[in-house]
């Protein structure tokens, strides 16, 4: 790659692990990075690692990370030339992209026009239909009333899926099994959509049962060249949100993969798309695929594709935004091996994955061959209640899927994360599941797992229990008077050492 930095300074309009990942890419390109933060994030890792940091406002996102005026003002004050929005917050907000352009700032992402064309699910469905990309039977436009919804549902037949027109991430999404359930589901979905995206409109489509969620990564430059970088299998979801993603997708024929790649590129080209983007599909039991939506931004799970292709998608986004051409063609992309990602979240799998913030009392991440971690936390950090519970992304690479899974199992075993509830234990369970290990996953995998009792093989043996009891006794013996974990664990030992030495 050319060594001339494409920009002098970039503002990172995000927080958490993605802000850290973005500023690392800036550093690799010798570009100064500007972090922004809310009052809840003054001590956050992205503020610590950035070259510069500016306060946006109070903790609520609406007054900080979602406030376009404050973000643009920070960019102005810092002298940044470009803004990277990451994912979430303002990343898919066409008005923000336009405002950046008006303010003379480069928005690192697609044009406002293609965001508008692909960002709304209904608009995207129309575009897909126009280009003969298969979509699920249903409404192309948002449904205006419950009555209309009932009529359409009757026509295409239950079960149907209600979805927010304006956004993704499972918010405003409802599976409706029968006509009786439709009224309440319609109301709830609309309310959720309004709360999440400021737009209550929802649309309706046929529900595919036990579908697989497979998406295509696309990347285009501002000069009309566009490629696809393989697929990601993202069927392992809870609360309609992905927790495990991998590439390549198990049990997907090369023909289907190629057809999906071509369809994704067709949709993107139709919208004059550039920068990184993701086209999501549902794949049914017969490997028929249906266009779902386009994420006009960097995806949470982009590292999976980076490990398989060897490319740095964020560095490429930055170079593309600066007007550089894609440094390779479709034929140059040679995937290697298999990569899989776990989204480590502050949530309680035993309580329906309720977010459960707290203080990271203990953090020793795994290391060694085949691992990468994109983390936004550190030992001592108190996870704020205001934002997404995603703490870190753990990614394992292997020559093949079994090796990648084995390395992830090893990493999950080494990972020490204490002081708050998290889903590491749940991942250990998934990675021990025979269906998952055989690549037999669909969007119902998590629900089916939770319906079964955990396999005895996962329970610690009696010797472990004895050792744990002894450890608890020793910890207590050394820890009088006890204090909360975060601050005082170390002091236990000083006190222990003193008492011991003085005996």
């Amino acid at each position, binding site marked *: 790659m050319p060594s001339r930095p494409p920009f002098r300074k970039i503002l990172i309009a995000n927080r958490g692990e993605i802000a850290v990942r973005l500023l690392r890419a800036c550093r690799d390109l010798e570009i100064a990075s500007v972090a922004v933060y809310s009052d809840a994030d*003054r*001590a956050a890792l992205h503020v610590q690692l950035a070259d510069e940091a500016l306060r946006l406002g109070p903790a609520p996102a609406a007054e900080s990370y979602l406030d376009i005026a404050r973000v643009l003002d920070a960019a102005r004050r810092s002298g940044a030339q470009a803004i990277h929005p990451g994912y979430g917050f303002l990343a898919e907000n066409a008005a923000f992209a336009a405002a950046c352009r008006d303010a003379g700032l480069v928005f690192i992402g697609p044009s406002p026009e293609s965001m508008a064309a692909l960002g709304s699910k209904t608009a995207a469905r129309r575009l897909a239909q126009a280009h003969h990309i298969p979509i699920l039977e249903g409404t192309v436009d948002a449904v205006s009333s419950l009555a209309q919804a009932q009529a359409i549902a009757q026509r295409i037949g239950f079960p149907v899926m209600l979805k927010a027109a304006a956004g993704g991430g499972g918010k405003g999404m409802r599976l409706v099994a029968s006509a009786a359930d439709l009224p309440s589901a319609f109301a709830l979905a609309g309310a959720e959509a309004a709360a999440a995206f400021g737009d209550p409109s929802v649309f309706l489509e046929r529900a595919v049962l036990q579908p697989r969620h497979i998406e295509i990564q696309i990347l285009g430059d501002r000069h009309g060249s566009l490629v696809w970088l393989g697929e990601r299998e993202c069927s392992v979801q809870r609360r309609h949100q992905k927790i495990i993603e991998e590439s390549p997708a198990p049990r997907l024929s090369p023909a289907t993969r190629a057809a999906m790649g071509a369809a994704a590129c067709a949709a993107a080209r139709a919208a004059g798309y550039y920068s990184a983007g993701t086209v999501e599909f549902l794949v049914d039991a017969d490997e028929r695929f249906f266009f779902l939506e386009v994420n006009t931004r960097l995806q949470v799970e982009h590292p999976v594709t980076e490990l398989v292709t060897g490319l740095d998608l964020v560095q490429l986004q930055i170079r593309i935004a600066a007007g550089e051409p894609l440094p390779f063609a479709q034929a140059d992309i040679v995937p290697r091996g298999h990569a899989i990602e776990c989204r480590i979240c502050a949530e309680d799998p035993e309580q329906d994955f309720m977010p459960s913030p*707290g*203080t990271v*009392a*203990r953090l*020793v991440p795994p290391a060694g061959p085949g691992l990468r971690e994109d983390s936004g936390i550190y030992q*001592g*950090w*108190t996870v704020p209640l205001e934002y997404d519970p995603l703490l870190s992304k753990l990614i394992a690479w292997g020559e093949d899927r079994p090796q990648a899974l084995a390395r992830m199992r090893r990493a*999950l*075993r*080494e990972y*020490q*994360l*204490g*002081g708050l509830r998290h889903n*590491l*234990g749940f991942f*250990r369970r998934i990675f021990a599941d025979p269906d998952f290990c055989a690549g037999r996953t669909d969007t119902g995998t998590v629900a089916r797992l939770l319906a079964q009792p955990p396999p005895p093989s996962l*329970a*610690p043996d009696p*010797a*472990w*229990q*004895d*050792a*744990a*009891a*002894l*450890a*608890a*006794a*020793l*910890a*207590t*013996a*050394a*820890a*009088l*008077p*006890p*204090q*909360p*974990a*975060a*601050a*005082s*664990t*170390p002091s*236990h*030992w000083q006190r*222990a050492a003193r008492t*011991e030495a003085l*005996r």
Partner: protein
Amino acid sequence: MIYEIQIGEAVRKLELTRDGDAWSVALDGQPLPADIALVAPGTISLLLAGRSFTFAYASADPSSVWLAAAGHETRAEVRDPRRRLAQRHFHLTGRARLNAPMAGKVVRLLAELGATVEAGQGLLVLEAMKMQNEVRSPKSGTLVSLAVAAGAAVATGQLLAEVE
């Protein structure tokens, strides 16, 4: 020292005796040959019959410890003889006194005076060094006294609230 350790349903009796630099251990009355190393703050290495167990731990509250080793996690309830008195006091009065586990500032109250609270429910949030910690109710009952207000600075051990 003798501890009763409850993990899940099972309760184990651990007897720790120091001889010189080392501990000798008895588990439910039987001697347990254990090689113990306190390798770092929050980390204990145990060798039991050749097997290596390295426990990361953090004490969540006075009577329970979070433990993790080899990909397993658990929360152990510890009954410590030296807290018997205090515990009996609980039983006599049925009133649990909450003292500040650390010095800091009360950033917000999570329950109102007179509220019915669950065991483990957060009553207030203490902040120190920009780190916030929830102080939880040791028992289910009613919040019969609140000794501090939001914004107050408290010292270690200072009475915060009582649950009855």
